[in-house]
């Protein structure tokens, strides 16, 4: 059949075909053969834990950011095909963010280098043998005479300790480096309490959260855990919900989830915090009151653009709620006053008595050495006092501003070594590249908090000829001998084990092997330590002067970390590039955000390319007009504008860091420290947005209701009327008659053919008061269902294939009214009166016996009538041979063998993960039992950090989804069309009245 030819190269059964001699390793090489005569290649020796056709799960740890979430790796025939959260892990408890799930695309990234590389005379890289590479490294290290330096981006772990010891033994220094290092907070905590460590926050317990620029739902801290906590407290439950206020110049995703957004100018957040602290302290009679006396609401009102009344009201609400929680930090508030800001917030928390309740100490570990030590290291390089530099798991030449001339200093080092698996900006400058292994290929661990250490084990043969840097160092040690002779473990695995011997001892484990096996099975050691008892009272006093900004431009420049690209390490993964930015809904591009008034003033339209000039540089990017930013500020996402780092990242967008100065002094990189001036260029580039009309036009797509009504158990409809608004359009009597008639007709249909008898009926419920719009579900859907990424050019034509999309609508925002945001995940609603079904001329779209809206890809001829007739527009058409271009080898090895890879010319859509349903049904049937509620979970429901999606059999009265559907907040989209959809949405809940008058109600 034609479509077989179409899907060539992504053959489900190749998974069987390649379970070969050396397992997956060989598999990768033969993995994508297109030979026509299929071959069956048996194992030489059958491994017990691999059964063809049956997935094997391994516990491991996510290394995509420093949070170190626990993951379950789903492998089929020896290769990982999906990452899901580890339910036992204290940090993420079963869910996983987009970046974590996309870890697979760094494992299978087509741009990973094939082996160690060395720079030759012509300055190009040659592939070399590992022995050769290690020999070269050893030679240089031993001849370096102690002038060795290491930059280590990997978190606290056995390896990091080992690397540090190793380099020290050689007489060198190691810098633990992380771009978003949170140095300011650490310093602030030191100044306030004499404790240079980070706090961990209990969002779940907080009743009133105020964030001063901390984007805790995006990149600041362990976001998955924080989001879970936020959903628990701020999600509507038992007639109540916590309140959240965001203070900062830009409405980030976090701010979009706040009940109020106080858009104070960059740098004056601290004043709000101090004033609040002053009020709270005086209300609570805290000793701090005296030291804060000078920061009365009236005193700061002018600088913050808020009224004293607003601040007082906010402070009083904050004081009244118990416990409350104030947080600061994060890149969007990392200006030259960041430390004072964090101090102010510390005082606020202390005054409100949150220390030890929602602000917890003694649980975090490690942390980076900070920007300052990086700068001094590069100074040393510049002075030529470094002979050999080892860069591991870090890309400083991208993540540090060009203004610092770091590249030049770096170039002065005679011998530079990188362990990057993909040649990034730093590796490109190196002399030797020793590609390290991906987290799923190596033995390793990651110590993320007191008593919690995640373990990693090789769950797949190395996809390319990489080697764990630990092993490289150990091998090198044999040649170097001398100071490093003591590092004589057989392999890093052995070293790791011996390190864990100590852990076992601490845990009072009897038999180590038993302990080790249990730890591997569980995914590590999860014995979180209780936080330290309350801290001694702070030193109080903080004096705050507004931070300075470089340059004289009219606009403050606000670079912010993208929730998809993080510090730029995510930019080489198509899933993250195509998953739209949760707020702007832009894909594959970078953009400059400006306020409508600003845009009108300098007369630019969306898509016009503007030049931003700062004292430190100039960048050109296209305009995105956004009401969620102050008119005196311009924002831009970080993470793009790579000059290397693989085909997907290279030359995509611009790097906002180019506008920043490297000037430091306080120990961190002040991201928000420049003013920019704008010049028009009058050339345009289409913005690759995926949202059509960003307003609901009163169609009630994403409904919301006031807390008081929700608490009374009203339906959104009742709440709407009770709110004194006109009733929305309802079906006329005649229409109602028709609908009833249709119901009777349906009953007849259930007595025909396949449809007779009892069947489960699948349904879903989505709680919009928990959904934050983070889009983790979207990535999960891409991973589970082999959805191709189509690229920028196709997105211009709105041809993205995301079966599940997060719809984002603006509310208000015009004139001076507050801007509100609504998010809703929209997938196929699996209508029971589906308009798409009768119009398909070949029954490719039809209704399954278990209430799914089936789509038979191999029957589809592609008339696309179903999509025209779908009121939700959730059907996606494969316009070109996306399946041929979306997965260059070896990315295609990630494909889920249980899901057909759709050919060109076929309509595809969400199936409620029917493959998962069938799999469970099969096992249940064979085991002669019924499937249990919760046993079947769609990929989106599984991934959601907020637990906003529930799925199950709605014929089972005990099912969770049925309970959810009973919630009075429940409504179905476009009810008037009588499509009888299977997805119920629980209306978002808004607080009755904003405390500072800057939120919706």
């Amino acid at each position, binding site marked *: 059949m*034609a*479509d077989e030819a179409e899907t060539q190269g992504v053959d489900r059964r190749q998974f069987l075909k390649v379970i070969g001699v050396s397992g997956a390793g060989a598999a990768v090489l033969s993995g994508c053969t297109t030979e026509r005569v299929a071959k069956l290649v048996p194992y030489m020796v059958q491994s017990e834990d691999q059964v063809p056709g049956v997935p094997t799960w391994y516990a491991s740890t996510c290394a995509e950011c420093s949070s170190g979430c626990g993951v379950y790796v789903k492998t089929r025939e020896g290769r990982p095909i999906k990452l899901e959260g580890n339910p036992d892990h204290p940090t993420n408890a079963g869910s996983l963010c987009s970046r974590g799930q996309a870890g697979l695309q760094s494992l299978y990234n087509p741009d990973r280098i094939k082996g160690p590389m060395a720079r030759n005379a012509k300055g190009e890289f040659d592939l070399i043998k590992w022995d050769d590479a290690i020999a070269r490294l050893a030679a240089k290290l031993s001849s370096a005479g102690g002038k060795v330096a290491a930059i280590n981006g990997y978190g606290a772990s056995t390896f990091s300790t080992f690397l540090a010891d190793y380099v020290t033994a050689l007489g060198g220094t190691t810098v633990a480096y992380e771009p978003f290092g949170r140095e300011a907070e650490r310093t602030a905590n030191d100044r306030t309490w004499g404790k240079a460590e980070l706090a961990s926050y209990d969002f779940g317990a907080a009743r009133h959260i105020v964030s001063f620029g901390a984007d805790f739902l995006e990149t600041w801290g362990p976001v998955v855990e924080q989001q879970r906590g936020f959903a628990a407290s701020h999600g509507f439950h038992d007639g109540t919900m916590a309140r959240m206020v965001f203070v900062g110049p830009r409405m980030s995703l976090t701010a979009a989830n706040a009940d109020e957004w106080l858009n104070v100018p960059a740098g004056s957040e601290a004043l709000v915090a101090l004033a609040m602290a002053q009020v709270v302290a005086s209300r609570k009679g805290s000793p701090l009151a005296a030291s804060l006396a000078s920061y009365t609401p009236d005193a700061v009102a002018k600088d913050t653009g808020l009224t004293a009344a607003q601040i007082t009201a906010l402070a009083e609400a904050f004081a009244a709620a118990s416990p409350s929680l104030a947080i600061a930090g994060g890149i969007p508030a990392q200006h030259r006053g960041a430390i004072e800001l964090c101090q102010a917030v510390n005082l606020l928390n202390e005054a409100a008595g949150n220390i030890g309740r929602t602000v917890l100490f003694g649980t975090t570990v490690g942390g980076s050495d900070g920007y300052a030590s990086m700068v001094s290291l590069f100074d040393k390089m510049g002075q030529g006092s470094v002979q050999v530099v080892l860069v591991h798991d870090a890309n400083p030449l991208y993540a540090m501003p060009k203004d610092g001339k770091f590249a030049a200093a770096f170039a002065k080092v005679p011998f530079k070594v990188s362990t990057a698996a993909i040649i990034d900006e730093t590796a490109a400058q190196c002399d030797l590249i020793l590609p390290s292994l991906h987290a799923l290929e190596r033995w390793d661990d990651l110590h993320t908090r007191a008593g919690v250490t995640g373990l990693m084990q090789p769950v797949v043969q190395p996809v390319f000829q990489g080697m764990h840097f630990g092993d490289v160092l150990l091998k090198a040690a044999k040649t170097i001998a001398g100071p490093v002779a003591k590092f004589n473990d057989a392999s890093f695995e052995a070293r790791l084990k011996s390190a864990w011997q100590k852990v076992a001892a601490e845990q009072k484990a009897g038999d180590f092997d038993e302990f080790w096996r249990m730890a591997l099975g569980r995914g590590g050691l999860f014995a979180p330590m209780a936080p330290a008892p309350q801290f001694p009272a702070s030193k109080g006093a903080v004096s705050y002067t507004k931070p300075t900004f470089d340059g004289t431009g009219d606009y403050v420049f606000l670079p912010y970390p993208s929730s998809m690209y993080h510090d730029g390490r995510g930019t080489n993964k198509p899933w993250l590039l195509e998953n739209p930015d949760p707020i702007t809904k832009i894909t594959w591009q970078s953009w400059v955000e400006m306020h409508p008034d600003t845009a009108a003033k300098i007369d630019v339209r969306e898509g016009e390319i503007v030049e931003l000039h700062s004292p430190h540089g100039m960048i050109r990017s296209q305009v995105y007009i956004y009401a969620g930013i102050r008119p005196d500020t311009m924002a831009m996402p970080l993470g793009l504008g790579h000059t290397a780092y693989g085909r997907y990242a290279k030359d995509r967008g611009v790097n906002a860091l180019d506008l920043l100065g490297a000037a430091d002094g306080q120990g961190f990189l002040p991201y928000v420290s420049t003013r920019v001036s704008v010049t028009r260029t009058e050339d345009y580039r289409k913005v690759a947005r995926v*949202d*059509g*009309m*960003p*307003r*609901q*036009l*009163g*169609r009630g*797509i994403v409904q919301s209701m006031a807390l008081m009504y929700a608490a009374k158990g009203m339906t959104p409809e009742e709440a709407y009327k009770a709110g004194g608004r006109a009733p929305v*359009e309802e079906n006329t009597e005649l229409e109602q008659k028709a609908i009833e008639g249709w119901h009777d007709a349906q009953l007849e249909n259930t007595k025909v053919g396949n449809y007779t008898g009892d069947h489960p009926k699948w349904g879903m419920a989505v709680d919009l008061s928990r959904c934050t719009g983070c889009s983790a579900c979207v990535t999960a859907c891409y991973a589970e269902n082999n959805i191709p990424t189509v690229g920028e050019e*196709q997105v211009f*034509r*709105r*041809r993205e294939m995301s079966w599940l*999309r997060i*719809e*984002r*609508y603006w509310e208000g925002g015009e004139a001076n009214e507050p801007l509100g945001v609504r998010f809703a995940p*929209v997938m196929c609603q699996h209508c029971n009166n589906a*308009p798409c079904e*009768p*119009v*398909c*001329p*070949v*029954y490719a779209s039809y209704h399954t016996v278990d209430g799914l809206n089936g789509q038979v890809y191999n*029957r*589809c*001829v*592609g*008339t*696309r*009538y179903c*999509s*025209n*007739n779908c*009121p*939700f*527009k959730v059907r*996606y*058409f*494969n*316009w*070109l*041979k996306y399946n041929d271009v979306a997965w260059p080898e070896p990315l295609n090895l990630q494909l889920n063998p249980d899901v057909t890879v759709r*050919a*060109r*010319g*076929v*309509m595809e859509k969400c199936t409620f993960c029917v493959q998962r349903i069938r799999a469970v049904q099969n096992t249940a049937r064979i085991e002669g039992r019924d499937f249990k509620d919760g046993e079947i979970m769609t990929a989106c429901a599984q991934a959601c950090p907020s637990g906003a999606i529930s799925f199950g059999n709605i014929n089972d009265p005990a099912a969770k989804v049925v309970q959810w559907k009973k919630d009075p907040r429940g409504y179905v*989209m*476009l009810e008037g*069309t009588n499509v009888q959809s299977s997805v119920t949405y629980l209306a978002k809940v808004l607080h009755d009245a904003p405390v500072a008058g800057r939120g919706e109600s």
Partner: protein
Amino acid sequence: MAVIAHDPSLPTQTHAEVTRDVVRTITDKPTTGYYILAGTMAFLVLVLLGTFTAILKYGLGLAGYSPPIMWSVYITTFVFWIGIGHAGTLISAILYLFRSRWRTAVYRSTEAMTVFAVMTAGLFPIIHIGRQWIFYWLIPYPNQRFLWPNFKSPLMWDVFAISTYLTVSSTFLVIGLVPDIAAVRDHVSGWKKKIYSALSLGWTGADSQWRHYSRAYLYLAALATPLVLSVHSVVSWDFAMSIVPGWHGTIFAPYFVAGAIYSGIGMVLTLVIPLRKVLKIEHMITSYHFDNLAKLTLFTGSILFYAYGMEYFIAWYSGSTFEQTTFWRRAFGPNWWAGWSMIICNAFVSQLLWFKKIRRNLTALFVISIFINIGMWFERWVIISMSLTNDYVPYAWGQINPTWADWGILAGSFGWFGLWFTLFYKNFPIVAIQEIKELIPMPRRSHGGGH
């Protein structure tokens, strides 16, 4: 000598002249102009083939489709050609049953136009689907999969409607041609004679033949008549049966039929006005005939005028916010230009035909007919594609920019149609010889002083 007033519906020339004039159009050597015309058409057909091959190779994505607009230029052009295909049968069959004499001069050309238009339209259902190589799954036939097409789907009705219409109208054309081909046969020689004799199915003009012939023709006419109404009703239901705001209208069947006839006659005018000059048959197709055609245009055009108005009224009257938004945006949305060009070209321009001066002025008629063709293409574009740009969920709204692949197929379809028609009028009698002859009054003797 009493002067006998001449009835304009009656031909002025004798039997011999009629045959001679018509046969001359075939026997004359083709002019360079003819070759240029045919060449252009052939080239456009190549464009069609080229574009289609590219689409087969790379996929429909070459065209400008951008979700949610899943149907655009191709379906628009499909409906456009189907519409064109309606004037022919109307004139040749329905007016035949009504015994209206003025049809005789033009019906052959319109009928040919019909057949070729339907042949063109027939290409599109195949071109526009995602996997063209399995289009035959739309045909019900027993197969080892035990699968049948979905007879509930309007697209299935379409398949039947079009194939039926093509069969009947082409049969009708061929039957009507038989005696004329015979006439041509008697005026040519050599290999041509062989071909024409074969095509004339041994027509001798014997009494019995005439008897059967007229009977058959009558029945075919009766058979074709309902199709004129049914076919385009079915096509309209492709849209009316859906729930897309702007498609979902009970008015659609009559609305589309009227539009079809309107566009059909528009195309007739566009073709015949130059043709009668080129073939030097002005004396056969006279301004009298055009006057009647124009009146028919005015009539159907006015129905459209009403339908347009009614659409907006219903949108308002229904109270459905979705309908209202659609029609508001149709007039004042980002694609207002398309909406207005449809209303002006169809509803307003056709009203000019109230004036006899304009009806009888061929240049004016020709210009108007061009407006009609453009307007009717835009009508379909607006109804089909522009309705899709904004339906229920605002987040999914979109816009569309057609690409070379769209225009390639569109232009190609004109080439395909044009090539057939060009070849036809040069090789077959474009005016129905024997029917004209039937109209020629018997010569009569006149007594002085009359009666």
